[in-house]
């Protein structure tokens, strides 16, 4: 049996003193250290960026798919379509500029994506459960996910439920291909960045090894490595040193609860 080794001795809040959403937000925030420009929608990624701005990374910037850059909403926006994201922003770019120049031009360090299914190398399905022609469940589709995947320097995937439904050996539909899948399918099409470097789930954190395969890098408190392996639809490789996620600090929780999302729009 592999035991997780806690390597981080930061003072932590008492266990269960934080919610799963808070934990995922804090973990995401810490992973953003040193990054400059983040492409993300509303939700946990926005909270993570806001927390990073107020703690480790004051200069980190969030770019929205709608073209809004340098948003300064007076309160947390309820939806990506919140008028308060536009008012007082530093720039609102046109859609061709956002997709053509900002994304394709390689200006995004980290793109945040979600998915219904993810595979071993980080390919994502957001289109359909079942066959595309005869869907069991029709999902929203790509939106900008294909472009975020292809053009960000790396991609963080946040999945609230780590289980065999979402971590699959084979996707029902490959909406947004991993770097590896892109290169295999079209080796002469230029790629950029790393593809999915990091997956943050309710059980732990997966990171890509140098072949791009997602391997277990850390488990959250109270979670065992076997538990994560059992919840993953492929034989999950392990990083050499697996850490236990350091719990959110009191200060991180205070910032989240009091400053960033006091009405708990996202901190469900």
């Amino acid at each position, binding site marked *: 049996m592999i035991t997780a080794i806690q390597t981080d001795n930061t003072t932590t809040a008492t266990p269960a003193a934080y919610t799963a959403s808070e934990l995922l937000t804090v973990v995401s925030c810490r992973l953003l250290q040193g990054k400059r420009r983040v492409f993300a929608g509303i939700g946990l990624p926005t909270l993570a960026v806001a927390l990073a701005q107020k703690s480790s990374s004051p200069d980190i910037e969030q770019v929205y798919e709608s073209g809004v850059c340098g948003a300064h909403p007076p309160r947390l926006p309820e939806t990506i379509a919140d008028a308060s994201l536009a008012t007082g922003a530093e720039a609102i770019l046109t859609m061709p500029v956002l997709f053509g120049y900002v994304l394709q031009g390689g200006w995004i360090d980290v793109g945040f994506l979600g998915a219904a299914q993810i595979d071993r190398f980080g390919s994502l399905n957001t289109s359909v459960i079942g066959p595309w022609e005869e869907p069991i469940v029709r999902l929203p589709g790509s939106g900008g996910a*294909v472009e975020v995947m*292809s053009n960000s320097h790396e991609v963080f995937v946040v999945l609230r439920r780590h289980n065999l439904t979402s971590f699959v050996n084979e996707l029902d539909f490959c909406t947004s291909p991993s770097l590896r899948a892109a290169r295999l399918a*079209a080796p002469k099409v230029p790629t950029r960045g790393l593809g999915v470097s990091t997956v943050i789930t309710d059980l732990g954190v997966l990171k890509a090894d140098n072949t791009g395969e997602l391997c277990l890098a850390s488990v959250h408190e109270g979670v065992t490595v076997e538990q994560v392996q059992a919840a993953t639809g492929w034989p999950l490789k392990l990083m050499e040193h697996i850490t236990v996620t350091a719990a959110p600090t009191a200060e991180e929780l205070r910032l989240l609860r009091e400053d960033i999302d006091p009405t708990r729009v996202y901190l469900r």
Partner: protein
Amino acid sequence: MTSKEASLHDAIAEFVADGDVVALEGFTHLIPFAAGHEIIRQRKRDLTLVRMTPDIIADQLVGAGCVSKLIFAFMGNSSVGSLYAVRRAIEAGSVSPIDIEEYSHYGLLARYQAGASGIPFMPIRSYAGSALTDINPNIKKITSPFDDESEIYVVPPLNPDVAIIHAQRADRSGNIQSWGILGPQQEVAFAARKTIAIVEEIVDDDVIRSDPNRTIIPGFVVDAVVESKYGAHPSFAQGYYDRDNDFYRSWSAISRDPEKLRQWIQEWIFDTEGHAGYLNKLGEGYFEPLIPVPHMSTPVNYGSVR
């Protein structure tokens, strides 16, 4: 300059025909709901609906039986629910009443760009390895004639029969001004054969001409300009009214049940006789909590000859 002002009824009656490819655009912001309702009211049929982000308006048009094909990149009711009428149709599989043609956001936007630009294809830096290339023959790979002979995916032009957009203001000749999130409105208007613009207010030429850089679509591209206050409800018009999030949250319960959906369409669209009727039904004071506090742009100086 000739006035292009028209009523919503007349604009839809004149420029939207059964069987047309109709693009209704607006990215989260300025979604042309009133125009969508008028299309339902006039019982248009067999439309190919093009929309980067089909949302409630698509659910209503599909639910009302106006649509035979949907061209899209992302369908959903933001984070609060699904489009059940659209899903029921698509999840019927081989007996679905609608065809779908699926892109990513930039894939569809690039089709508008190619359509507006009269070029046979637009290259985009993605799609390698995506199954979208398997199910959509409009996403093709070609080889660069330069240097390294790298390859790239391209999409062909899309030229809708009609583009319908909503904006904050225009003059009577159809010079359209918009601010906040801009979406693909400029691209789709130039790409389409005809363009209908619905605006919160038609203003004097002087207002438009005091800030020509704010004009996103010049009048010569616009065939009809319609003044229809609150015509983007339940979406929003930056500076005019915020998004009606309560309505968005309430939609799943309506759309999930075909009978409820049918009743909603009857009650709110067929029985209201026009957008004015719809607003009456919402009731006086309905928009009060949605009206934002003024937050004005700092004027810029264009300067005038001495």
